[in-house]
């Protein structure tokens, strides 16, 4: 398997053996340009890799590899707004998401959603979302006004959920024709109205595709679970050391297991500097810290896209830090090892099956 690693200075690929014990690294890719996401699309059998590369000079571009990452080709066409009069221009691509049917979705900054149905040769935009009637009131988070999360219902591809900072969750049940806010019960502590219709700063959503109605969400403050693909959210993070954090990961074989990285809001590091992954094994009823192999004095953070879970048994979890380390576990978190260090700031991690 491969671990695809986006960093502030290019992409890397770590190739592991079947035991997930030894890993070989390649990179940096993309001429050292900021890489916010790398994903594998295995819908055609042999995985095709895509990377969201945000060059500081020439704009954001999508790269594609059809040979397991050995060579990459820059897409001539990239996600771009079609309404020139809007004045909108894509600044960064934050998130890439294959839907398992050969389509690739892209979430960008300023917040918008695009899809390519031909392997990144062309891109269409979701106009009813991108020019939504409330758009003028959307506020950016610290990272910008970004659409950073795309969740496709694995059994009904018409159902799409996206998360925007700081707007919250929007959903469509008709393949992107119409969108509605889905922030029911999600807090906005920074707002005089604690539960507004929109304006939440949702940080990340993850799920197990075999149980697509169950979503887990890390909010700016609060961790949540939904059992109906986002219609209602139940707060499950009150017993964490901090309910602030960025990524959230769900075990890909056992849907009641999820992982978060509690951080202090201002410093973006772990409480008391004790870097711990927290796990729930009962869908959020209880949480416990996992620290075997993790540092007791560390002041890095973990960005929203920088956690991945594999589909092995027992499940692997991979987490990349803002100081360039990658830690991983092969036993659902009972012990952790360092896979890589001295990388640039890690912006994304994801798995490729081959």
């Amino acid at each position, binding site marked *: 398997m491969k671990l695809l690693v986006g960093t*502030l200075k290019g992409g890397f690929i770590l190739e592991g053996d079947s035991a997930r014990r030894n890993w070989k690294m390649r990179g940096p890719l993309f001429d050292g340009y900021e890489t916010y996401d790398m994903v594998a699309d295995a819908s055609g059998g042999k995985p095709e890799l895509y990377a969201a590369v945000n060059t*500081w*000079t*020439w*704009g954001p571009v999508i790269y594609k590899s059809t040979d397991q990452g050995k060579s990459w080709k820059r897409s001539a066409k990239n996600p*771009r*707004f079609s309404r020139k009069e809007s004045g909108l*221009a*894509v600044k960064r691509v934050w998130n890439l998401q294959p839907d398992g049917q050969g389509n690739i979705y892209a979430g960008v900054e300023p917040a918008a959603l695009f899809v390519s149905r031909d392997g990144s040769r062309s891109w269409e935009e979701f106009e009813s979302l991108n020019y939504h009637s409330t758009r003028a009131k959307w506020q950016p988070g610290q990272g910008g006004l970004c659409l950073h999360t795309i969740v496709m219902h694995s059994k009904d591809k018409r159902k799409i959920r996206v998360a925007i900072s700081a707007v919250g969750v929007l959903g469509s049940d008709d393949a992107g024709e119409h969108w509605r806010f889905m922030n029911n019960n999600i807090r906005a502590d920074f707002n005089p109205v604690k539960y507004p219709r929109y304006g939440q700063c949702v940080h990340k959503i993850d799920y197990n595709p075999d149980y697509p109605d169950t979503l887990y969400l890390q909010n700016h403050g609060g961790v949540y679970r939904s059992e109906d693909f986002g219609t209602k959210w139940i707060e499950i993070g009150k017993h964490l050391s901090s309910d602030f954090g960025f990524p959230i990961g769900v075990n890909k074989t056992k849907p009641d297991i999820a992982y978060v990285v509690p951080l202090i809001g201002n410093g973006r590091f772990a409480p008391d500097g004790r870097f711990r992954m927290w796990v729930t094994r009962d869908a959020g009823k209880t949480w416990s810290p996992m620290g075997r192999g993790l540092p007791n004095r560390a002041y890095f953070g973990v960005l929203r896209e920088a956690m991945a879970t594999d589909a092995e048994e027992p499940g692997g979890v991979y987490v990349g830090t803002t100081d360039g380390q990658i830690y991983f576990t092969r036993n659902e978190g009972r012990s952790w090892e360092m896979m890589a260090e001295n990388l640039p*700031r890690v912006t994304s991690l994801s798995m490729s099956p081959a």
Partner: protein
Amino acid sequence: MPVKVYLTQMLVRHLGIEPELTAEADTVEGLLDSIDVHHQGFKDSICDESGRIRVYVNVFVNGRMLDREPKALSTRLSAGDEVHILASVAGGIRGP
């Protein structure tokens, strides 16, 4: 009318394009469109979809730098003009 175009090595590497080109165009936008026909993604690399020249790209016509507003793309060109497309100095890029 033929215009001579000189490109920074960074752009040459990014697009796999020649560092010096000759193209026929009456305006800067026409020039970008003309080169884009043979090198897809060229125009998009220089200006965004709103028509603004990208923040870290500088376009010079006969040594005069264009501003970044969309109207800059309407700048007229004449035969024998020289256009330089360079990346800005940006030593303080955010890190680590």
